[in-house]
């Protein structure tokens, strides 16, 4: 039954659903799997849905099947699984019924308690019928039929076998590169930002508007009048503001550079500004923050449909945000506290986010992060965070 295999995968963070686990059992009971090698491959394709988890799968598989005795699952484990199945059932009865190989309607007549009982019995029955783990799969090579344990009439493989047991393959951890811990790469940023676009009609009128055409034709008394529209094109405007000053941003230079390069390639209508720590009365178009200043107040006149993305660690002394003379360069005299500038930007651009390269678990230790989060929604500069940020930027708020 491999119930502990299932739970270990879940404990290690692989999102395995009970439905897919049942599906695996269906494959086993169909007699499609004849060796541990095949089990390794097929179970992975059914249970694990992203190469990012392949590495964890390999580790769990290796430790689970590396000279470890398989144990019968206890009733307690079975009833846990039965409860999980009920959850799945509530979400998608059809899939669960399919995976069990029974009629959906037959199950639909049962009450939740009866369902749990039913699932429990089915799981128990499967366990007993096969006398625990190892019997679910034949031993590789000793199968009486077929070449190297394959089913008669099975597939022929292009070339020699890899000559290693699945456990050895798993121990190699071939998929370490794909596991989630890797840094954000350029193409990943591309994937995340792909959805950031705003379709507006532009260009020549060359698409037929069927509804209007029918309407106009009827109005014309049947004389055909074809109405054309402009095509939808992406015309999103993006303003990117990058904190490029101060030692606190140093560890994140690579990350921000990656974002910067990609964003430049992705968006046609993009302006990039630079600031140090937070935004004061001026913000610069040049990375040196010297030659091309622009007044922050002037942003109030810009197109509010523009998406504003601010990148910075938002970590600074509180007075930098709130004091009129908060700027860390004492020679400068500013008239408005920085927080007011941030509020002005957030009011002008309803679609604005703050991306923070510091991991979210560290955010609590800087008071300034708290304050800025009240003004801008803040997301981690990770694949996940970018995804959420894009979701927010595209929402109609």
């Amino acid at each position, binding site marked *: 039954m491999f119930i502990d295999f299932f739970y270990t995968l879940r404990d290690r963070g692989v*999102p395995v659903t009970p439905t897919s686990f049942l599906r695996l059992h269906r*494959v086993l009971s169909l007699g*499609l799997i004849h060796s541990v090698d095949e089990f390794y491959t097929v179970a992975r394709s059914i249970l694990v849905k*992203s190469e990012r988890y392949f590495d964890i799968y390999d580790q769990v598989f290796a430790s689970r099947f590396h000279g470890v005795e398989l144990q019968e699952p206890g009733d307690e484990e079975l009833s846990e699984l039965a409860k999980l199945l009920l959850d799945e059932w509530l979400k998608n009865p*059809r899939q669960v019924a399919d995976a069990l190989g029974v009629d959906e309607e037959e199950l639909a007549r049962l009450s939740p308690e009866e369902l749990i009982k039913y699932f429990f019995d089915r799981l128990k029955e499967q366990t007993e019928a096969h006398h625990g783990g190892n019997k679910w799969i034949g031993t590789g090579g000793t199968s009486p039929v077929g070449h190297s344990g394959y089913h008669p009439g099975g*597939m*022929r493989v292009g070339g020699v076998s890899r000559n290693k047991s699945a456990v050895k393959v798993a121990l190699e951890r071939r*998929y370490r590169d794909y596991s989630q811990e890797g840094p954000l790469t350029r193409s990943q940023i591309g994937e995340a930002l792909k959805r950031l676009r705003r379709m507006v009609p532009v260009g020549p009128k060359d698409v037929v508007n069927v509804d209007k055409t029918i309407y106009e034709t009827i109005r014309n008394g049947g004389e*055909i009048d074809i109405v054309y529209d402009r095509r939808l094109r992406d015309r999103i405007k993006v303003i990117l503001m990058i904190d490029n000053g101060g030692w606190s941003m140093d560890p994140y230079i690579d990350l921000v550079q990656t974002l910067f390069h990609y964003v430049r390639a992705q968006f046609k209508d993009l302006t990039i500004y630079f600031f140090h720590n937070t935004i004061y009365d001026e913000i610069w178009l040049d990375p040196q923050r010297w030659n091309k200043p622009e007044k922050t107040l002037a942003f109030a006149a810009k197109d509010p449909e523009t998406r504003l993305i601010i990148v910075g660690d938002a970590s600074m002394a509180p007075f930098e945000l709130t004091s009129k003379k908060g700027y860390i360069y004492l020679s400068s005299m500013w008239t408005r506290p920085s927080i007011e500038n941030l509020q002005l930007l957030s009011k002008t651009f309803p679609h604005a986010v703050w991306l923070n390269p510091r991991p979210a678990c560290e955010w609590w230790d800087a008071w300034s992060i708290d304050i800025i989060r009240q003004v801008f929604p803040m997301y981690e500069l990770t694949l996940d965070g970018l*995804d959420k940020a894009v979701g927010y930027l595209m929402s109609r708020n």
Partner: protein
Amino acid sequence: MTIADKINPLNTFRGASRYVLDEELAKIVNVSIAIEMPLLLKGEPGTGKSMLAYAIAESLGMPLIVLNVKSSMKLVDALYQYDTLTRLNDSRFGDSTRNVSNIEEYITMGKIGQAFVADNRTVLLIDEIDKADTDFQDDMLDVLDQMQFDIIEIDKTISAVHRPVVVITSNAKKDLSDPFLGRCNFHHIAFPDSDMMRRIINVHFPNLQGDMVRACVDAFYRLRDIEGIEKKPATRELINWIRALKSDPDFVLSELRRGDVPYLGVLFKKSPDMHIASRRIAQMIR
């Protein structure tokens, strides 16, 4: 259906004439066909994701239907099209053989629709699913799950005559949505190692001499290892490159062994990549 039916030798995938199949993938394909689940393939460009569908179609003798997903595509486009304009035109001028009052005559099947109504079981390749938005993906999986869809205009339900073998490819580094993944089997095709690559080359160029193959493949992996390359050359580039070398009468194998690489442009498609590569090659020769 009994097991024997499902594993009918005629219906089991064995790899095709131009496709080198590895053991893992063969097993996954066969199980997916047996339990009638769509197979989602991910992997670097050039690892043969789409080619697999062609190979399945060839080896199982099924027709292949390809749906190339585009970002602007709506699900209904993949199911069927209702040609309103022709109908409007026919109703106005009345010079066609179609019966204007019969809407069905103006409905043509999209790719998924074609796979459903085909007389034989087909292989349906849904290529680059990641280009479409999440809603498209989820809705499409519903259709494939139930193997039927409605044509609203004529209130008719189209059900699959034979469940097609569905192969879906994605280039995305990002994961697809959970409901989508829940309904697919998944495999990630790793970039082939040099042994596998030599076999692939042998399949494409059966008459090529062994030392030539080895030299080309070695040079190819050396080039892939150069740091700072954005788009690494893939299998497709290697095959085209060998084709270029073969057709060049002046090409000498010893030059290649020495480290010189002609026709770099076939392998590197981006000018910064080409620049980096040619500089590294110059260094290596010296």
